[in-house]
């Protein structure tokens, strides 16, 4: 390795507001430590921009430990950058080489309008959850852990789907801007469990309806979503969502 610092050229999408035209701006950044996370690198850039009197680059982040799903950058054409199973906040600058040019764009989907620079409005996901991604029971006191037996392999599948942090990388990476992986994870995590299976019919119909209404695309089974997903949600969930959907439309009556 050539020392511990990098000099980079950053091509960053700048856009002042939702309805304004945007474009790329280039910035040179030197002295970037290879131990920095990608967001820390942007922090350094922003400090320089503030010092020089320019508006800092707006980007989303919160936990910075890979669990909240807020960070969302298209880095060199890959959602969350080149690492597999990694969020942007967990991506380290050691993945890049000295002298690299890095292109940074916001997620691009009609359903995720750009708010400013690299920040997009992903409330479409919240509305899909509100449409059916819940279980309507009175919670009351905490029930006994084993009062409803759930076989181990079912728990595993539900947990794997529930790992989804709602970052939107699946939509960003899909050539059709389809939200199928996200919606299927949310449908699956509940449909698999006894508590959630009670409302499985109306849930899948309502959530798919909302997904279409928000203007996401359809699924072409290209599986870019799975590859881009920072928590590796599997496309087997999409097959399950489709089965749930067929069942709900054709045989189930509620």
């Amino acid at each position, binding site marked *: 390795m050539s020392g511990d610092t990098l000099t980079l050229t950053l*091509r960053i*999408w700048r856009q002042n507001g939702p309805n304004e035209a945007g474009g*790329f701006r280039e910035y040179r950044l030197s002295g970037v430590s290879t131990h920095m996370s990608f967001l820390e690198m942007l922090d350094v850039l922003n400090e320089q921009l503030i010092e020089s009197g320019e508006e800092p680059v707006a980007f989303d982040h919160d936990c910075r430990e890979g669990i909240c799903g807020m960070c969302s950058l*298209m880095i*060199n*054409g*890959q*959602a969350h950058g*080149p690492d*597999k199973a990694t969020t942007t906040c967990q991506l380290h600058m050691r993945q890049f080489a000295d002298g690299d040019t890095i*292109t940074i*764009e916001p997620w*691009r*989907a*009609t*359903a995720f309008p750009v708010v400013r620079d690299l920040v997009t409005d992903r409330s479409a996901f919240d509305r899909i959850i509100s449409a059916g991604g819940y279980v309507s029971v009175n919670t009351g006191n905490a029930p006994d852990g084993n009062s409803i037996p759930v076989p181990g392999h079912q728990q595993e599948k539900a947990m794997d789907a529930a790992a989804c942090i709602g970052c939107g990388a699946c939509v960003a*990476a899909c*050539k*059709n*801007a*389809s939200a199928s992986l996200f919606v299927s994870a949310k449908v699956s995590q509940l449909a698999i469990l006894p508590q959630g299976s009670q409302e499985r019919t109306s849930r899948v119909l309502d959530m*798919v*309806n909302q*997904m*279409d209404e928000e*203007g*996401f*695309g*359809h*699924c*072409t*089974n*290209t*599986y*870019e979503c*799975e*590859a*881009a997903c920072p928590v590796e949600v599997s*496309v*087997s969930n*999409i*097959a*399950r*969502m*489709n*089965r749930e*959907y*067929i069942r*709900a*439309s*054709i045989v189930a009556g509620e």
Partner: protein
Amino acid sequence: MDLLCKICSWPACLLARLPGIGPIVKMCFTSIGQKILMALTGLALVGFLVTHLAGNLLLFKGEEQFNTYAENLHSLGGALVVAEVGLFGAFAVHMCLAISTTAMSRRARKSSYAEQQSKRDDVILGGGGASRFMLITGVLIGAFLVLHVADMKFNLRDKLGITQFEHGDEESGNLYLHVRQVLRDPVTRVVYLVALLGLGIHLSHGISSAAQTLGLHHRRWNVLIRGGGMLLAWAIALGFLSIWVLGFLK
């Protein structure tokens, strides 16, 4: 486009109110429902292609065998007409939905990325392999079909005086000789070659994609479904291409 969709969907909206089949009709308006229908019609078309190929391979058996097969087929009479209408219907539904879903996805991303790279490590062509070429290969197949049906069934190019196929059409003439002659035509050669390669690409994604769309996904079977889909796709395409090669023989 949107207005057209609204007008076209009006009778279907009424149907969706019907008890019983209502939910099924409604399904046809959603992204998933449309993909399910595409998968079903696509697989039905694959079924047709397999039988069509099996029948056509009789061309290698010689004039008599092939013509007897054709005669037997035509002796089905009404049943054949019903099958042809069904086939046409499957094509029509498949193509309309292809346009509808593609339009849906174009609307879903209006401004594209400056750069895009696949994160998958198992595709030959970046960005989804054959799945990127579904519409274009589909259109190629569609264009081929127009020429194919016009020549083989109606002998239209001959009737319009564009070509001189002396053996007439399937009703009056010798179908075997007619087919051999059509295959020797230079326009046929180019169009068929391109379309059949397109068909191989279309199906190499289409068959396994249809399985996934219909919910067939299991860790144990995925390799088999994907491998089998690919194999069947190219078996069909190469099978038809062998007949294309026949156009160069003798």
